């Protein structure tokens, strides 16, 4: 018998804690308490990440041998994730209606959180996969929480793609593991190069992670799910959960180059296409969702290009996007024009950062990302600021138009402060991490050329925005590709007409046979016939014996 575990229990506690909170609402009386505990759930993770994700642990008996450890990229994203979840959790705790639904929400919130944290902490593919499944599937409950038609429809698409993604991922992982004969992520990753089905495995991994990461054309769930989910849910979905796909790619996609081009192309398609498509949306959350697809597209490009700044970029985007979604919620809850203006201001600053206004965290992230990706992609990244500005500006307009709900919450200010803090961190944290995460000199962001390179696309974007405001932009439902796909026609295919069972035993021929037997039997019953046959048989036997002997 193995020892129960070896190593430091800290990573395990990070995962266990949200799960424990998640179990609390099983007891109906504790549901409200549990909801209030939501913001606390990611705090151990935050602390762990801030401490630099020290220590690793192995549980040999758990599942197929659980190993937890976090690399530098993972640690970075772990912290970001914890932060986004904490703020969103607080928002949720404040705004969520009490009751049974809230209990369910709490439970799955925590499960999703644990999964989300798990993908950063997992060091073996099984744990990774388990965490990934948890974050994918449990998030469905966040999507459908409101039980509106739109939410349920979005949930259906979401769960379909999530399950497909899981399946693809599992298959991809198996291909790697079969070659590696080991379950460690690093080993498996290396094994893809030599695996007989390596390319297929990598393709499946890209698809599996791509679904999560909103990679075009597998992104369709995202613009449906994010607007449909409650604000807190949207925030974590867009800010944190999509990054699970990203970390998967970072951790598992091998060094080989064949797949990179694919990611770059799809990423670019998403980065520009989704941003532009966002202009066809009226719901600010839908616009934000498309913006997420766009930003994730950029990240995919970076992954494809082998950029070192992926995690850094994702860190910023996660926090900024989380804050933006929460802003939408705050806007809906804003009761005074002052509050509305404050929200708009907050959102605007986050938008500027995402768009890459020089000296913001977003700009730093872009700078870091551009490093070492080549001129073409570098230009593309720069250009992406145009579309980002465009779509997020559009978002601000939509946000401003958002009608307020009459609901009131007591801690509006507190919440606003927290969100503002998140946004501020989005702007500021890249600065703090710059030295450790990026190889560029400290003064690089301040160079005029750099600043200019950040500014002109934004200006271009603003011009475009002004133009776009003049145009009569179409108003499409979210979901782009999906809307134009004849999905309804798929159902009958699954309901093939199948014959009734027991066809083997269809009676008619049997009855006919039996009837014939009965008639023959009656014929045989005739003594002259039977008797002649009998005497004939005697002679026949005699003849047989005679001829043989």
């Amino acid at each position, binding site marked *: 018998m193995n020892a129960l575990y070896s190593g430091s229990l800290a990573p395990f506690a990070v995962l266990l804690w949200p799960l424990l909170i998640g179990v609390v609402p099983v007891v109906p009386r504790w549901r409200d308490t549990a909801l209030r505990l939501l913001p606390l759930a990611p705090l151990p993770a935050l602390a762990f990440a801030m401490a630099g994700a020290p220590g690793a642990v192995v549980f040999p008996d758990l599942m197929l041998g659980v190993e937890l450890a976090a690399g530098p990229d993972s640690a970075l994203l772990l912290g970001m994730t914890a932060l986004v979840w904490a703020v969103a959790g607080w928002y949720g705790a404040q705004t969520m209606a009490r009751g049974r639904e809230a209990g369910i929400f709490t439970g799955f919130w925590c499960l999703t959180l644990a999964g989300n944290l798990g993908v950063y902490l997992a060091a073996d593919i099984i744990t990774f996969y388990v965490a990934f499944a948890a974050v994918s599937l449990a998030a469905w409950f966040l999507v459908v929480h409101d039980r509106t038609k739109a939410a349920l429809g979005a949930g259906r698409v979401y769960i379909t793609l999530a399950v*497909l993604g899981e399946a693809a991922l*599992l298959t991809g992982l198996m291909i790697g593991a079969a070659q590696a004969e080991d379950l460690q992520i690093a080993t498996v990753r290396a094994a893809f190069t030599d695996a007989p089905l390596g390319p297929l495995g990598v393709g499946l991994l890209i698809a599996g992670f791509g679904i999560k990461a909103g990679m075009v054309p597998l992104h369709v769930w995202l613009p449906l799910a994010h607007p449909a989910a409650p604000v807190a849910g949207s925030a974590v979905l867009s800010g944190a959960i999509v990054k699970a796909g990203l970390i998967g790619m970072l951790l598992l996609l091998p060094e080989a180059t064949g797949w990179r081009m694919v990611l770059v192309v799809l990423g670019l398609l998403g980065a520009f296409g989704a941003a532009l498509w966002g202009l066809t949306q009226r719901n600010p959350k839908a616009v934000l969702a498309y913006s997420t697809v766009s930003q994730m597209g950029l990240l995919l490009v970076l992954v494809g290009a082998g950029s070192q700044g992926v995690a850094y970029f994702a860190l910023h985007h996660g926090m900024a996007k989380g804050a933006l979604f929460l802003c939408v919620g705050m806007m809906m809850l804003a009761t005074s024009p002052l509050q509305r203006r404050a929200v708009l201001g907050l959102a605007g600053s986050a938008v500027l950062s995402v768009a890459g206004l020089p000296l913001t965290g977003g700009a730093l992230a872009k700078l870091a990302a551009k490093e070492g990706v080549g001129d073409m992609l570098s230009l593309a990244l720069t250009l992406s600021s145009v579309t980002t500005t465009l779509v997020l500006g559009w978002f601000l307009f939509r946000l401003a138009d958002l009608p307020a709900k009459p609901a009131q919450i007591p801690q509006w200010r507190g919440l606003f402060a927290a969100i503002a803090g998140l946004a501020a961190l989005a702007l500021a944290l890249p600065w703090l991490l710059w030295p450790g995460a990026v190889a560029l000199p400290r003064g690089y962001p301040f160079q005029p050329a750099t600043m200019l390179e950040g500014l002109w696309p934004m200006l271009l974007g603003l011009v475009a925005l002004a133009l776009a405001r003049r145009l009569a932009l179409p108003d499409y439902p979210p979901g782009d590709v999906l809307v134009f796909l004849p999905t309804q026609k798929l159902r009958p295919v699954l309901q093939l007409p199948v014959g009734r069972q027991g066809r*083997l*035993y269809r009676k008619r021929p049997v009855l006919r046979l039996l009837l014939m037997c009965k008639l023959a039997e009656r014929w045989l019953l005739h003594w002259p016939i039977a008797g002649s046959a009998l005497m004939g048989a005697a002679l026949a036997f005699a003849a047989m014996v005679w001829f043989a002997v």
Partner: protein
Amino acid sequence: MTTALPVLLLMTSLLPAGVTFFLAQDSHALRNALQLGGAVLKLALIIWMLFAVADGAAYEAEFPLAPGLVVLLRVDALALLFISLSATLWFLTTIYAIAYFGTKAELSRFFGFFSLCVAATTGLALSGSLISFFIFFELLTLSTWPLVAHKQDKPSLRAARVYFAYALPGSAALLWAIIWLESATGPVLFTEPPDLSGLDPAALRAIFALFIIGVGVKAGLVPLHGWLPAAMAAPAPVSALLHAVAVVKAGAFGVVRVVYDVFGAENMTALGVGVPLAIVASFTIIWGSVRALQQDEIKKRLAFSTVSQVSYIVLGAALASPLAMIGGLVHLIHQGLMKITLFFCAGIFDERAGVKRIDGLNGMGAQMPWTSACFSIGALGMIGLPPLAGFVSKFYLGLGALEAGAPWVLAVLLASTFLNAAYFLPILYRLWFLPLASGAKGDDRAPGLVVPAVVTAAATVGVGMLAASPISPLGWATLIVTQGYGP
């Protein structure tokens, strides 16, 4: 001791069976005590043996009937794997059944055959030779028939008829195969692979096909699966037993025995029969799922799901690689746990809320939280949601397929996962998310029914969570494969 133990193991269910038949209808306490006592005793014996066998001990008992016709009971690791599943689930199903039936009529008959069925399964597991395997295989057919027909209404009788109509040709094929083989090799013991050199490959292929048809009927291989959905007319404990413990498992177990202990992986590969078998299994996996998708009745859907799931085991055996073998074997246990949970729950839904059809489940999650939760766990496990039981089997099967150089199996697994999700998730959705239909009500304040379900659901989680531990089913399956079939 070494000869007495297998016999004792058999007796723990055979004796209660014999006595129960003659008990008066209303002596509930005595009957229940007998049933549970036997089950507990058997569990205790098995636990005792688990440790002994893990240390390499083997128990054997032999009863010659006629020359060549020898009943050999032998406890080896593979037998113990199957038998511990059946013993555990028997115990739980007994509790469940006692609660399910309460004081209804014909219980002595029911429990008599119920125990007999388990005795047959035990014998099947312990069989050390082909012919004893066949004998218990048939005993199983016979003792299950009254259980399927138990309700004695039209659908039940039809189901029983269909069951027989499939099972008996199957056993004819099996007997045919056994005798054909043994006429060339002499009696086949599982401990020593027979010398197949006396038969030409064509004959061997035919024998293999006959074997697979024979055991495949029970395992529900398409197109031999028609009886299984029909058998849903039986009472819930029977369905549970049929699907999780006894009949289909016996078939799957038979495939494993045939593939590994009769033919051997090398021979199978040399004959080129593994791939066709894998194709059949794959087709079954897909077809069963597609059909499940079309069902509106809970139990029917579960039945087709069984058709699909059991073929994982067959697939594992057919792929003939150690990892696939582990995956198949461990699925033997895992599928049992998950499917019995589902059937327990389906029975509870029927019994406590009168719900038979899927659309009646709307909103039951709130009314019957424990049942619904167990059902959900079982369903998610079936889909292969990590870290539940089904995931572990699927993972190993996938690895095994790659190891065996049959990557197309991955596509099958993938499709199956998706189809599983397609037919289970809507149920969960209805349970938890749709509003309760007006007038519908239910509760799960029936500990005798709910506790077994909770236990198996917990086990579904547990065997997945603790898969790597040496005492888990996975650990045991690994032990079997490395000890017995490893290179």
